[in-house]
């Protein structure tokens, strides 16, 4: 057992329920390192939805809410508004975030509330047996699209940028150092931070979409089929665009709300 894991994980809950080679454990690993680097164990709280990704923060020995399906972000917003000093980090999956909780997600991004949303994107509903998700690639075969998926794919990072998220980054599990830095930056950023992680699901994505069940080969597939965004350069077409896609400073929701309340109270007294 790694030293940091021994320090930050609930020992009685181990081992993880994740399948062998699952990327969720690697995301948790990067998060532990980010929390340790920032030294904010007492000030952080985690919220998660339903799905394999919902189990990521459950093992962390911090304040955790395991919320209902698709509604991780509303729970986190409530927590943030009642405890504005807490750093709230949300773990969610692609089906949980944009499939079932899509409306909550875009409105949280619009408000620019100070949350860090880590979305684990494995292209499929993994826990329930490999059904088609909004992020499933075009013409991919899954359990619920046995002749190929006829629906176009959501580019969730672009959706977050359009909806008004102020920090957006996308990495895959093949880039663990960059992922850790992005999570760190997202926690430090004052505003809605969205980090999309392309992860391997060796069981469902491996069997249905990529036809490759070795976790390392799947990570290599993500590495080969992605390109890193560089300023002033056109990204290669047809590849997953990785990197820091958005970083800007915009007034944050909890502060604006406090300001509006203060102004209202002053007028009331007059």
């Amino acid at each position, binding site marked *: *057992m*790694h*030293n*940091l*894991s021994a320090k930050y*994980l609930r020992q009685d809950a*181990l*081992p*993880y329920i*994740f*399948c*062998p*080679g*699952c*990327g*969720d*454990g*690697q995301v*948790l*690993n*990067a998060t*532990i*390192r980010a929390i340790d680097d920032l030294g904010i164990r007492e000030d952080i709280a985690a919220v998660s939805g339903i799905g394999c990704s919902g189990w990521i923060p459950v093992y962390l020995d911090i304040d955790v809410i395991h919320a209902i399906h698709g509604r991780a972000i509303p729970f986190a917003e409530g927590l943030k508004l009642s405890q504005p000093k807490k750093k709230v980090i949300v773990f969610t999956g692609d089906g949980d975030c944009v499939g079932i909780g899509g409306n909550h997600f875009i409105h949280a991004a619009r408000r620019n509330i100070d949350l860090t949303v880590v979305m684990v994107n494995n292209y499929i509903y993994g826990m329930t047996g490999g059904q088609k998700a909004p992020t499933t690639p075009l013409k991919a075969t899954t359990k619920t699209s046995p002749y190929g998926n006829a629906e176009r794919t959501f580019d969730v990072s672009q959706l977050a940028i359009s909806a008004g998220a102020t920090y957006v980054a996308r990495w895959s*599990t093949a880039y*663990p*150092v960059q992922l*850790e830095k992005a999570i760190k930056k997202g926690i430090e950023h004052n505003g809605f931070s969205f980090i999309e992680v392309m992860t391997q699901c*060796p069981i469902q994505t491996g069997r249905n979409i990529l036809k490759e069940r070795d*976790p*390392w080969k799947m*990570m290599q597939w993500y590495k080969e089929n992605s390109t890193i965004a560089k300023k002033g350069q056109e990204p290669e077409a047809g590849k997953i665009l990785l990197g820091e896609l958005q970083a800007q400073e915009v007034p944050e929701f909890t502060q604006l709300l406090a300001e509006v309340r203060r102004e209202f109270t002053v007028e009331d007294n007059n």
Partner: protein
Amino acid sequence: MKITIDSRYCKGCNVCIDVCPKKVFESSNSRSNAGYLMPEVAHAESCINCALCERLCPDTCINVEKEGA
């Protein structure tokens, strides 16, 4: 380098064998209590402490430490 693999939590996904640039790990025939085929530390002397195995182990069961530290 002192490299340990925790047999309580390892699930035998073999990511560490593939990720190591110095080929420190090798697959073995020994099974953990949960029944997974465990990797073994075969060439600890060639480890350069890049800690990629630590970072990419999905079950965080690898620990790399300098000997005597």
